[in-house]
């Protein structure tokens, strides 16, 4: 679940730009990139407090589980916007467009919409979130190394050693402060928390794929595995981008 926070900005007419900004928080779970950036959002229709979002994915064969997650997250995020009284999504041009659209809008469970599925989507989401955690860790550790931290320092960092400030991601090491690029560290922390890691001040900041502290002798192999997770997501992203372009060109023509 994305755990959307209610919007506390003052109530007023809902702007479609605000809806798009909010949808930017929804990611394609396989690529760990925003559905807005990926150009999946066809249309946002606002009628007073009623908002409808139309989505088209790169192929009609996109996993129904992934399609469900994106549609559900999109609806939740939009519903959390101030002034929205009703949020609906429409999945278009998909082999299960009807089931997903109807199921998500009626607050059904995935298993109700797809009776022959083997269960919910939670497990699939957890697997993909974990890959996103690794990919983001790669960028965050890269930022630490760029800032001058050494591998033996990186592996023993704890959540409490880190503070996110206007200056950047500030690490405290025995009275010494090291400032790293904030953005990758912040993105990593968000996904680590979402996967149930790095919650308490005492928790190790960076972990193995299995979620354990990194023995210093394993730093290199963990570094390479996190790189691989990122290359995989980026590679698949390139496939989806190309499919999306091809499909939209075709749909526009027809």
């Amino acid at each position, binding site marked *: 679940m994305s755990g959307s926070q209610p919007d506390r900005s003052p109530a007023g007419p809902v702007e479609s730009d605000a809806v798009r900004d909010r949808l930017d928080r929804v990611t394609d779970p396989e690529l760990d990139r925003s559905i807005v950036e990926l150009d999946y959002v066809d249309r946002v229709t606002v009628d007073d407090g009623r908002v409808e979002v139309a989505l088209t994915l790169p192929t009609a*064969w996109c996993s*129904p589980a992934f399609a469900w997650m994106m549609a559900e997250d999109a609806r939740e995020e939009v519903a959390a916007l101030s002034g929205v009284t009703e949020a609906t999504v429409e999945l278009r041009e998909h082999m299960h467009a009807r089931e997903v659209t109807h199921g998500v809008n009626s607050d059904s469970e995935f298993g109700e919409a797809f009776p022959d599925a083997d269960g919910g989507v939670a*497990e*699939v989401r957890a697997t993909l979130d974990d890959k996103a955690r690794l990919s983001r860790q790669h960028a965050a550790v890269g930022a630490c190394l760029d800032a001058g931290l050494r591998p033996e320092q990186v592996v023993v960092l704890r959540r409490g050693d880190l503070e996110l400030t206007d200056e950047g991601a500030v690490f405290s090491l025995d009275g010494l402060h090291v400032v790293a690029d904030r953005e990758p560290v912040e993105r990593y922390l968000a996904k680590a928390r979402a996967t149930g890691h790095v919650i308490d001040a005492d928790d190790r900041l960076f972990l193995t794929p299995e979620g354990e502290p990194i023995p210093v002798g394993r730093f290199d192999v963990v570094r390479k595995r996190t790189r*691989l997770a990122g*290359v995989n997501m980026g590679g*698949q992203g390139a496939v989806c981008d190309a*499919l999306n372009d091809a499909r939209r060109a075709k749909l526009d023509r027809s």
Partner: protein
Amino acid sequence: MYDANGEDVFVIDGHVHLWDATEENIKHEGGEQFIQCFYDYHTGFTPEDEQWTLDEYRKYGADRMVEDLFGNAAVDMAIFQPTYLSDFYEEGFNTIDDNGALAERYPERFVNNGRFDPRDGEAGLEELERQKEEYDIQGVKVYTAEWKGDSKGWRLDSEDSFEFLQKCVDLGIDKVHPHKGPTIRPLNRDAFDVADVDDAATSFPELDFVVEHVGLPRLDDFCWIGTQEPNVYGGLAVAAPMVTNRPQKFGEIMGELLYWIGEDNLLFGSDYALWNPDWLVDAVMNAELTPDQRAEYGTELSIDVMRKIMGENAAELYDIDIEAKKREFRDDPITEAFGLGDHYAGAGAAAD
């Protein structure tokens, strides 16, 4: 043979099809969606001036296929990988018998692989025997996400599948090509999860497993398995055409594959007619890693590495004597038909 600045590269295209997706052959909407999806892959990763129309793409026929593969000598040999999809297509999408009819016209140029589906039970085991008898198959393609009645897929590490893998061992079929590509149906289960390859490869060390499409989008899982199992190979179909419009990503993927899987365990494949080797081979052969990638991965796409990937590794797996083939191709029917004598003229002289 591909000419890389005066150096010959013998190319074995490890993944080709002769398919029929005409409207007359489609019996389920899944069949139409399937070919439409393939066509998007085609246009998405094919230079504009090389793109086909959808009608051409539905059915191209044997003669065009032969010309596309061999006409400009981009490919020297090719390996057929059947895809049945019998619930979607009346006569199947791309069957061993359709492929076999062409392979028998040019047996020196084609390897014809079979297939099995463990859900076919006893009849499936008999069919595997027939394929061995009629076509002397050395390998099988398996498609774990294929629909069959109420079933939306199967696993390579299931008890039924192991029975078929044992049958392959008994029949002397020692190459298994599991298709592990983009996630589609069935629903929430991942039909192309690569974990089942791990168990199968461990349980059948006498078989070699070529994971087609290198598990994309599970490249990470595939590499982690491949690094631990010596009998696991990667087929580059789908990854290869990324070289045209996503060269940076192609470089990263090749870097990872060379690091985890190694240059001896990777096989080129065009996935024809998804993509056409008549331009793809040239594009892949001209690919280079960026300086950053070379530094990160400590490797490069040298002529020796590319020779292995483009042909030598497949030759090793399929017991193909490349030097003998070069001599044979000086005057075989394909060479006669396309006037390729010059390409193979030097062959033999340089042979050991």
